[in-house]
């Protein structure tokens, strides 16, 4: 009770910016307005279950999963390299890794547009080398590339911070007991780094599954993801009811994936992010 007052601003903040909007979304999701009267209805959710929209949902999850896996495959070795270096060079490396994040997200994505364009830098280079030109921009590949590029640091940094804290003596003990490098990694380093991996996966998967700007810019509005569907309903079509229903489904999806991840992170040490 005594320490209570310091939390008021936060409670207030949460009421205004989390609870109230959430209730509004629920309200819109379960109602519709016909001839001026608002009625309670499950129609919006029934509509989400139509094959067209399930396809959008599936596409979003699939692209997000692929980019999460790619981020992990690229990110884990990077985190190990960063964690393994001696102090002076390490900070420079980490800095180099973080600097692109200081730049505006949109700007970075626009930059990819000019690189991937049919007359862009990559195709010009390919042409100069006498290689066939590729259709890169406005494809699934471009969208995944955009996601991996933008979200990679969110995978690397949590793993890096966990790896750095691993007690060296545990590794030395394993080596003393005759483990080779592979066994040390498999039995000691990797299990100890799991919390970082878990939070890395959540931090990449969540923005990836909800993104709408990457798929819009690099997918040419062609590969509609769930984020685009929601954006369209709110910003263009003015069907807030359907948009809210889709948002609720997406929230459930994220909740579900977080639940699954939590099973693998029993100690709750996942960087303490969620």
């Amino acid at each position, binding site marked *: 009770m005594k320490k*209570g007052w310091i939390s008021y601003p936060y409670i207030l903040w949460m009421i205004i910016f989390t609870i109230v909007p959430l209730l509004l979304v629920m309200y819109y999701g379960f109602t519709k307005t016909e001839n001026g009267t608002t009625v309670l209805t499950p129609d919006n959710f029934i509509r989400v279950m139509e094959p*067209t929209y399930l396809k*959008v949902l599936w596409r979003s999850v699939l692209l997000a999963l692929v980019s999460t896996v790619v981020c992990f495959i690229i990110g884990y070795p990077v985190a190990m390299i960063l964690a393994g270096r001696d102090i002076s060079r390490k900070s420079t490396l980490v800095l180099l890794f973080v600097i692109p994040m200081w730049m505006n997200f949109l700007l970075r994505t626009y930059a990819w547009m000019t690189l991937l*364009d049919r007359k862009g830098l990559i195709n010009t280079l390919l042409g100069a080398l006498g290689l066939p030109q590729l259709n890169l*921009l406005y494809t699934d590949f471009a969208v995944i590339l955009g996601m991996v590029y933008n979200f990679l640091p969110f995978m690397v940094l949590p793993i890096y911070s966990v790896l750095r804290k691993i007690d060296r003596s545990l590794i030395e003990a394993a080596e003393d007991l005759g483990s080779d490098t592979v066994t040390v990694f498999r039995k000691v380093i990797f299990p100890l780094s799991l919390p970082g991996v878990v939070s890395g996966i959540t931090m990449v998967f969540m923005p990836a599954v909800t993104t709408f700007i990457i798929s819009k810019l690099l997918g040419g*509005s*062609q590969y509609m993801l769930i984020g685009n569907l929601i954006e369209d309903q709110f910003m*263009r*079509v*003015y069907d807030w009811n359907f948009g809210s229903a889709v948002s609720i489904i997406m929230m459930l999806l994220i909740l579900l994936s977080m639940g699954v991840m939590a099973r693998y992170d029993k100690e709750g040490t996942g960087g303490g992010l969620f």
Partner: protein
Amino acid sequence: MKKRIASFAVLLLAVAVILTACGSPGTGKGDGSEKVVLNVFNWGDYMCDTVLEAFEKEYPHIKVNYETYTTNEDMYVKIKTGGSAYDVAFPSDYMIKRMIDEGLVKEINMDNIPNYKYIDDQFKNLSYDPDNKYSVPYLWGTVGILYNKTMVTEPVDSWSILWDEKYKKQIIMSDSERDSIGVTLKMLGYSMNTKNIDELEEAKQKMIEQKPLVLAYLVDEAKDMMVAESAAMAVVWSGDALIAMGENENLAYAIPKEGTNYWFDCMVIPSTSKHQKEAEIFINFLCDPEMSLRNVDYIGYATPNTETMKMLDPEVITNSTAYPDLNQLENCEIFEYPGDEVNKIYNRIWTEVKAN
């Protein structure tokens, strides 16, 4: 306990004050010299920068806060939900009708727009605003196909070329609902304003069928892609076509024989505007022949201003891309607002095509 309630109340008050402060932009606060901030909401790439500069120079007490949108629908939702009070917006024909019907625009006092006399009579008393009470014409144009003559060798005279397998992944469709559905309806030989469910359903199937051939759905970026020769053809508005053709001589613009949409973008004053007087000054300024000329030179669309027409290079006027003869355009239609119920069907078709 009392103390807790009191501190809570103070916090609530503080938040309320902050929120109201944030919630009212553009009410002329700040740098001492009580400037009126005029919130102008226009299409992307739709006004020459020098016009805004000239306006602020001539009317030093008004500061223009300029924002842009991509499609009529984007603009409608922002004005309808009323987040910020815009003072001038530039909707097209069918959207003007919808906004008038829903009471989203104010009557304009034409006495304050003396330059209205320059507007050609053929742009007055049109169906969307029969008594010219709410809108002042800004620019007009058509929808057509911008294509690259080196990539498309056959004549471009039908919308059906957009369904030609040969041009797989070389076609850019418009990311604007009415335009993309409209050209599909025209291709099928129906009206762009149809309310017939079967015709609309057929158009939807056609658009889904076309999707694998489409490189991207774009609006403002389409002309850049065409200039860079990254696609063979694009569905664009005439002004974008002219600008692109000016930058790449391989490009040409065609209005297919099935007919197309010709449209009028007009200036309106949203009903949430708090600066009607300044908004009217601004609208009048844009109708000034000299300012109108600068805009036309910069963005390529056709002007409804008779004085501006006289100042234009005669070659521009005989150029059929910019100034097609309205009487000779066969099968062409102005978009109409189909009513809320049918509009929902249009929305749904567009969502399903994009989602597919």
